[in-house]
């Protein structure tokens, strides 16, 4: 009859005990946070690293670039992550936040690039678009075509309505849903880039400007296709009128059926993306907390695996996952800097 009471007492005691031992804990696994765009590359490296060395496989959390920096810059100590991935460069405000919290020495590693393409079927006419035209075709609200600094609901139905040089075809574009990193990047680079060509929008507060630029059409011209980029490719092959937005790696795999539109006159190729000539491209980075190297085992070794030719080189396994490698001389310099853990000065940002 006393049993329930005893059980409660024991349970309460053990739970108290486990709480006490929670503090002060050494860590032997590298903790990585950051961008969901870099996540597929970093997980492949982490798993390879875990399988081919005696170090445990690093733990990866996909928190987004900004969330990653926030965690990374929170301080020194094993409760904070060792490496953060980012699909953009660290901002100087983030660098200062790091400095304030004692995260002084940080090594920056540029791992390569990622391009987003707007493509259609090879049997249709290849499009040549500017970012401004992309914005006008896909934004929910656009500047009044009659002139003036006011916004109206997007009136464009055909591409030729935007610019007479474009084909007389309905605007129908399939793209990724808001949960996707590709969508974030597309909205931030292409839509915002096109949007900022309007002076009065550029002059707005950042928040208001984003509200206008990041809002995609909801009247059926822009079709959310789900996370499956394969589906978009299949639809494009069937429907000649349709355009699709997806990551460069899918273009690469399906170049027999689809072709990419040139943007501002530049087509996506590994060279134009790596050189940042193609406008809808961005560099991918990761940042190492130097103070943790040597404390948490495996940090430098992981970074070396990432920066080895077998991984990020022209024929490395990351290319299979869709990474666009840096030019070889950039790779060589970066790999050298990684070996020495050369810290950032803050001036390069």
């Amino acid at each position, binding site marked *: *009859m*006393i049993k*329930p*009471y005893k*059980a*409660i007492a024991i*349970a*309460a005691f*053990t*739970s108290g005990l*486990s*709480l006490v*031992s*929670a*503090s002060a*804990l050494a*860590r032997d*696994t590298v*903790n990585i946070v950051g961008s969901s765009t870099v*996540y*597929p590359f970093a*997980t*492949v490296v*982490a*798993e390879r690293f*875990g*399988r*081919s060395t005696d170090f*445990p*496989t690093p*733990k*990866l*959390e*996909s928190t987004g670039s900004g969330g990653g920096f926030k965690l990374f810059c929170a301080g020194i100590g*094993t*409760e904070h992550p060792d490496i953060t991935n980012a699909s953009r460069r660290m901002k100087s405000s983030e660098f200062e936040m790091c400095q304030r919290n004692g995260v002084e020495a940080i090594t920056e590693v540029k791992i390569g690039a990622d391009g987003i393409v707007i493509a259609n079927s090879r049997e249709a006419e290849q499009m040549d678009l500017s970012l401004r035209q992309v914005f006008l075709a896909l934004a929910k609200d656009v500047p009044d075509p009659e002139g003036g600094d006011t916004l109206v609901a997007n009136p464009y139905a055909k591409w030729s309505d935007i610019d007479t040089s474009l084909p007389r075809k309905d605007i129908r574009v399939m793209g990724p849903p808001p949960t996707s990193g590709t969508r974030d990047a597309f909205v931030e680079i292409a839509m915002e880039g096109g949007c900022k060509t309007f002076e009065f929008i550029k002059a707005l507060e950042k928040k208001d400007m984003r509200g206008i630029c990041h809002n995609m059409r909801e009247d059926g011209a822009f079709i959310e296709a789900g*996370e499956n*980029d*394969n589906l978009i490719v*299949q639809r494009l092959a069937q429907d000649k009128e349709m355009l699709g937005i997806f990551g460069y790696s899918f273009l690469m*795999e399906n170049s027999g059926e689809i072709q990419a539109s040139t943007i501002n006159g530049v087509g996506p190729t590994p060279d134009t993306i790596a050189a940042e000539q193609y406008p809808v491209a961005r560099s991918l980075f990761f940042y190492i907390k130097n103070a943790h190297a040597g404390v948490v085992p495996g940090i430098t070794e992981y970074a070396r695996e990432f920066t080895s030719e077998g991984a990020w080189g022209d024929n490395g*396994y990351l290319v299979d996952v869709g990474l666009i490698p840096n030019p070889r001389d950039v790779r060589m310099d970066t790999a050298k800097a990684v070996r020495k853990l050369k810290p950032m000065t803050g001036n390069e940002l």
Partner: protein
Amino acid sequence: MTDPGSQAELVRHSLRRRYRKERRFRFYGIAAIAVALFSLVILFTDIISKGYTGFIKTTVTLEVHLDGELMYLNDASDPDQIAMADFQAPIIKALQGYFPDAVSRADKRELSRMTGSYASNQVRDLLKENPGLLGSTRTIEFPAHDTVSVYVKHAGDPGYSIRLSEQQQRWTDELVRKGVIDNGFNDVFFSNGDSREPSNAGILGALVGSLLTMGITLVIAFPVGVAAAVYLEEFAPRNGFTDFIEVNINNLAAVPSVIFGLLGLAVFIGVFGMPRSVPVLGGLVLALMTLPTIIISSRAAIKSVPPSIREAAEGIGASKMQVVLHHVLPLAMPGMLTGSIIGMAQALGETAPLLLVGMVAFIVEIPDGFFSSATVLPVQIFIWAGSAEQGFVELASAGIMVLLAFLITMNAFAIWLRKRLERRW
């Protein structure tokens, strides 16, 4: 004017209508059950039809000659040589035994994509553990590459697209005919943690993580919840303050779960400096989330114990504490367990609060304690469902089946416990 004859007439007339009404009412009830059952059947058919292939793995069994010369290896116990050796070469060589024409660089590349990406690691680990095997010939079972596996399992299914080249398809057909490529029970799924390679990915890591997390949740939420309920119901004075507490507990039960994650982030990680992504942390957060459910159901269970039991016990001179511990608690225990199991089932399926405390992560190692990084079943399903590789579609559905099995086991245990406790009283 009311005369009894017409009254009876009225009743007789309305009788048929009333019977009809009752029949209709019953029909609505049955229809409601049918709708629920129907959706359940659809759900299960969809999950099982999509997921059963997740329990099947495609393997490539090869006679591999562990040729030292081919691998640039003459001493397998030397770690430096191991690091520089080419363990893919003997696998390609073994495949070339079936396709002697495949000698060009491109062909070799395609051959190496027949087995999973970690096939060479398998050869390396074998040699590392048994350096004496160098030079011998071994039969090794490799997991097939994701694309080969999709082709073998799902060729012709419009839901899948075949990514193999025509040459590889021909090779695969040939190897299937020769029995080199075969399907078998997917034991990897039950013995591995997560992987980026569907053929190497398993649910065990998440299963152990869920078990550890749920353990912590139960150990904290149940005693605390029961103690709170007993005090509030049996000892606390009825005044404004206890009313205030009661209202707050009821409100807490309706708070969205992600709020508890924020709380965990701010308090457990921020103030107490607990490590991220560990089962203890997840368990604590989920315990806070389950606590109100347990308190409310425990209070209801205590209330339902008839007052006569309390009065009888008090009548023979039992103290208040004896009444509670010897009579009220054991009688209320089945009800408390039911409440706890509802709370635990809810916690088992939760991902939102765990996202904030870092348990939504890519974790390959199987957690070995309450303080090693872990993820839980619903998170694993979520991660797989969002992965690009086609092989993860079936794994996600298979993972759902494992989650449901876990849930049913947990419920069955609670029912068994309840039955036992009920029999004693």
